């Protein structure tokens, strides 16, 4: 039985979500602003404190140099890989970056105080926000999670995601591929057998996975994709057009004006979304200098523009079908995942590819997180809903080693069920040779230089022998997260060879250690401290509401006794609020809340009668906004 509270997290390019299994069905945990989606935006406020999600979005236009979005595009990548991205994204790389070093992004102004962050650290800030949302929801610490990644993520990108979890104070029990997670959520209530294709076009990544569902086993047969293809590319295309327009028509070169670009970006995203339901939209962006950028886009024009982008999903789909040995007719169901699949033209393309109408009854933004929660439940020991469920996933890319002549020798082929392993034997070339170097690659190409370099391993401490005598057994193992592990042994001496790993694009263990935001040990303490802060905030809200209540006509309807009791409880709350005992504060809040029920009801009556007199509810408002559980607001809605 499930005992651990393990959450499922979808760490997306555009939005991130946290979900968990409530009884027999997965649910998304909302943030304190009531929204299920946490925008994957991180900003530094005026005091250089990180702000995450919706709260960070305003910085994108106000102080773009203090904000960053779409960081997922940079996860596990080197400076050479991202040159193309830098043309379209306002990522500001640290100036002292060395080749082969993990990327660092600058956040903050030019003045002193500018900080640099690696992509895993920025992702960790998003994860920590989700962790806190879950902790507020449960009223208890959360330290374990399942995190989803694009199926086509390579080893370095997976490792970077796992590192981000660790930095955020989360033990990442499993990385699950996003389309596979979606199929778990999809299959949970369908309980049927058959072949399912999951087409996942998100903000920044595209995946296609073909699965066989049988008796609770979700078996991935093949997967393919493009980790740099998504809604972002559509946005960038529209931004480029707008910038060309403004240069041509208005003579304004805004390409280096981050604020203007951001304003245009917001407008084209809105237009893109609207075009899924409207035949045309009008762009109207206010530009610096008081000028406006006006343009009408019809859906027809939009579809023509994006055709080359969405056509890039065809190749991976065909390859996945070929690898699975299936014809489109043999696919029983097609499931759509990711916000970009809301575009009618994308749906039409999928229909054409698979010769059938795709499923659209699932919320494409939430299904991955819900599936992650299902997988979390399985890992926690399962429940009635997940009984007999088992996920068998594959590695998306072939694993190879470089052999003489710069050729890749593939040792684990793509679409092999994971965990998977391969053993290779090495020997020495000269007498007494103590080291052997191994270059590990990932990819499908013949030549090593065309594949992704994962790491260089140095086998050390080989016992001194004549050339060719040593027989070193090297075992390559891809675990259930799709992450590679290497171990080596010299067979004649039985000695474990020491492996020195130089990840081509990753953080070392020591670096990750140094970045950890909330260490596991202080999780309880952090949680307690946050609870105290939150309880105090709640206390302030109810005390302010009470002040307001005292001034309302309803106060006059209370008996002296009632007023006395309320005053006593108010005093008790103020006293306990100064202490560090959040449970005591909550108790006092509850007491005062109970004691003021009649006052709230009377205020409600007054409010209703004033409303009938033509006044609005706002004028008879009793407190602030929909933030957090509001004790007096509760009575209001009863």
């Amino acid at each position, binding site marked *: 039985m499930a*005992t*651990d509270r393990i959450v499922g997290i979808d760490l997306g390019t555009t939005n991130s979500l946290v979900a968990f299994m409530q009884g027999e069905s997965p649910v998304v945990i909302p943030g304190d602003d009531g929204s299920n989606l946490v925008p994957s935006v991180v900003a530094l406020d005026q005091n250089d404190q990180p702000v995450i999600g919706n709260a960070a979005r305003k910085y994108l236009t106000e102080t773009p140099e203090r904000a960053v979005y779409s960081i997922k595009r940079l996860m596990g990548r080197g400076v050479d890989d991202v040159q193309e991205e830098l043309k379209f994204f306002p990522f500001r790389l640290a100036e002292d970056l060395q080749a082969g070093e993990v990327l660092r992004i600058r956040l903050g102004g030019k003045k002193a105080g500018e900080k640099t962050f690696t992509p895993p650290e920025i992702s960790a800030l998003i994860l920590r926000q989700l962790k806190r949302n879950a902790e507020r929801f449960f009223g208890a610490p959360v330290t374990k999670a399942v995190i989803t990644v694009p199926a086509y993520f390579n080893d370095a990108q997976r490792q970077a995601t796992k590192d981000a979890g660790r930095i955020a104070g989360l033990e990442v*029990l*499993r990385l699950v591929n996003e389309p596979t997670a979606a199929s778990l959520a999809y299959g949970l209530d369908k309980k049927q057998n058959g072949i399912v294709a999951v087409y996942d076009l998100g903000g920044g990544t595209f995946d296609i996975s073909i699965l066989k569902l*049988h*008796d609770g*086993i979700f078996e991935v047969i093949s997967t393919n994709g493009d980790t740099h293809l998504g809604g972002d590319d559509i946005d960038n295309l529209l931004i480029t057009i707008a910038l060309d327009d403004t240069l041509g028509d208005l003579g304004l070169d805004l390409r280096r004006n981050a604020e203007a670009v951001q304003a245009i970006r917001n407008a084209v995203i809105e237009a893109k979304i609207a075009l899924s339901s409207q035949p045309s939209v009008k762009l109207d962006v206010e530009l610096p200098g008081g000028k406006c950028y006006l343009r009408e886009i019809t859906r027809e024009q939009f579809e023509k523009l994006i055709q080359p982008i969405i056509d890039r999903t065809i190749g991976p789909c065909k390859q996945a079908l070929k690898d699975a040995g299936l014809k489109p007719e043999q696919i029983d169901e097609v499931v759509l995942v990711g916000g970009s699949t809301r575009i009618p033209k994308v749906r039409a393309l999928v229909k054409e590819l698979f010769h059938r109408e795709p499923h659209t009854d699932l919320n494409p933004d939430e299904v991955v997180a819900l599936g992650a929660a299902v*997988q979390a439940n*399985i*890992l*926690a*020991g399962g429940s009635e809903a997940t009984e*007999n469920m*088992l*996920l*068998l996933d594959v590695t998306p890319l072939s694993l190879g080693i470089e*052999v*003489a*002549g710069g*050729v890749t*020798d593939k040792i684990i082929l793509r679409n*092999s*069920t*994971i*965990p*998977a*392993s*391969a053993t290779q034997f090495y020997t020495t070339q000269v007498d007494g040779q103590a080291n052997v170097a191994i270059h590990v690659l990932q990819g499908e190409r013949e030549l090593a230089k065309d594949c992704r370099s994962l790491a260089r391993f140095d086998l050390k401490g080989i016992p001194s022998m004549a050339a060719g005598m040593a027989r070193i057994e090297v075992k390559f*193992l*891809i*675990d*259930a997260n799709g992450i590679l592990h290497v171990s080596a042994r010299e067979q004649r001496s039985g000695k474990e060879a020491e492996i020195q790993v130089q990840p081509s694009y990753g953080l070392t263990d020591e670096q990750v250690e140094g970045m950890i935001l909330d260490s596991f040990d202080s999780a309880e303490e952090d949680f307690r401290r946050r609870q105290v802060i939150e309880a105090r905030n709640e206390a302030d809200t109810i005390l302010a509401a009470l002040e307001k209540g005292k001034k309302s006509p309803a106060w006059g309807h209370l008996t002296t006794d009632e007023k006395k009791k309320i005053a006593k409880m108010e005093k008790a709350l103020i006293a306990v609020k100064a202490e560090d005992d959040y449970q005591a504060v909550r108790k006092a809040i509850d007491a005062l809340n109970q004691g003021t029920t009649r006052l709230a009801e009377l205020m409600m009556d007054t409010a209703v009668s004033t409303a009938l007199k033509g006044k609005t509810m706002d004028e008879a408002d009793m407190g602030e906004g929909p933030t957090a559980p509001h004790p007096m607001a509760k009575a209001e809605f009863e």
Partner: protein
Amino acid sequence: MRAVHFCEACGKVQPPVPVDYFTFFGLPRKLNLDVTALDKDFYELSRKLHPDLNAQAGSKEQEWSLQQSSLLNDAHRTLKDPIKRTQYLLKLEGVELEEQSKTATEQARSTGQLKKQIVPPDLLEEVFELNMQLEELRAQKKMGEDDPALIEEIGRQKFELEEKQEGLLHELQGRWKIWDGMIQREHNGQPVSEEERRQERDKMVDVLNRRNYIRNLVRDVNEVLEQ
């Protein structure tokens, strides 16, 4: 006998024993194999050994589960495929198929020469002609031209090659029968001479080599056609 993978009484994963893939599934070293039964066994074992179902176990058991389930997946992947299965058995019999071709490849690369491949005699003429045509099509494609007649002719030859490939699989299955019969005889206590064993191995190696050659040829044709 199948190797012990988990405790029958308590269901806990046991440390992996280094065994060959046939032994892992408790199968004799025969080549005619009931793939449906293999799949069934694979799914049943997955339900016991997979790391997801042992995530709450102790760290030692989690490690065993990782080792065991990778061995299970490796064994299933190899045995379910007729060609991989045959190659694997030959490797167990001491034939270093892979090694040979790898050494040859490396040598060819380091000397900058084309890898010498033994062309099956019955294909000699066809292959010569096909290579000429592929060369011509490559040259045409470079110039941005397309000769539909040539493409059709190459497509026809590709189809023939694929049929030959299919035929070789049948030939291989014929050899399996003889091999399996030999193993059965041995199992029944009748001695099998080392010479007979060697002969049967060589015949299978020969079929695999021919098939490999054709497979590479088809791959080359596809490459040129898809350019």
